[in-house]
């Protein structure tokens, strides 16, 4: 009987490798969720989403967008109204606070991505992004 070592490609080894990656990603996600940057971002996001003035202006924007989709009314007038409403939304202090918090959190996510990519030897975020076209690309 041969005692020669053989290289058998065991699928279980890949699965275990993936499980380790899953665990490492979960740990990273948990720690990231505990950072002050994420907590501030989450708080600002909730405040923006629950604000009545933001909701009122957003609903108006949607009305104009739906009218444009259905070809109702004057295109330029709708687009002008949308632009005005968007400026109003962006000028709200609560929305500006949200954008600032978002930028800070984005910076942290980018730094994390750089560390992951450097250690993986392959760029992480661009390859981890799920394609929206369904082509698998």
């Amino acid at each position, binding site marked *: 009987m041969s005692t020669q070592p053989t290289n058998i490609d065991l699928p279980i080894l890949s699965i275990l490798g993936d499980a380790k990656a899953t665990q*490492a990603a979960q740990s*990273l996600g948990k720690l990231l969720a505990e950072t002050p940057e994420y907590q501030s971002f989450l708080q600002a996001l909730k405040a923006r989403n629950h604000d009545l003035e933001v909701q009122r202006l957003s609903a108006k924007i949607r009305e104009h967008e739906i009218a444009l989709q259905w070809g109702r009314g004057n295109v330029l007038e709708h687009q002008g109204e949308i632009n005005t409403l968007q400026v109003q939304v962006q000028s709200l202090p609560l929305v500006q606070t949200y954008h600032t918090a978002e930028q800070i959190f984005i910076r942290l996510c980018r730094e994390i991505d750089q560390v992951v990519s450097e250690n993986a030897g392959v760029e992480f975020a661009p390859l981890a992004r799920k394609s929206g076209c369904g082509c698998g690309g």
Partner: protein
Amino acid sequence: MNPELLEAARSLGETLNQAKAVQAYLQAKAEAEADPECASLEAHMWEIYHALIARQENGEQLTQPEVQEFYALQNQARSHRLVQARDAALAQVKSLFADAGSEITGQLGVDFTSLALAALEQ
């Protein structure tokens, strides 16, 4: 970045690097780059691609034959066995990375990869 977070990011990177899919991709990529025929074919394809894009961005109308010529070159590059092997390996890496990204996103409730890439796009 706090040290614990930095260590977790390093750990994920190292774990991904050790994954079979990533090792297979890095090997396939190195083989494609080391093969003179394959490397030259791809370099030529990208050279033509960038030249066509630059002309298009300058408002120039590209002719049908030169566009077709580029697509023929692209098909030739894509059908090279080393490019096919590299692209197949890359698809496996994408799947692994997408799963890892989903795990981070799952903990946050917001899309981590989109946020990480948003910084690049600003």
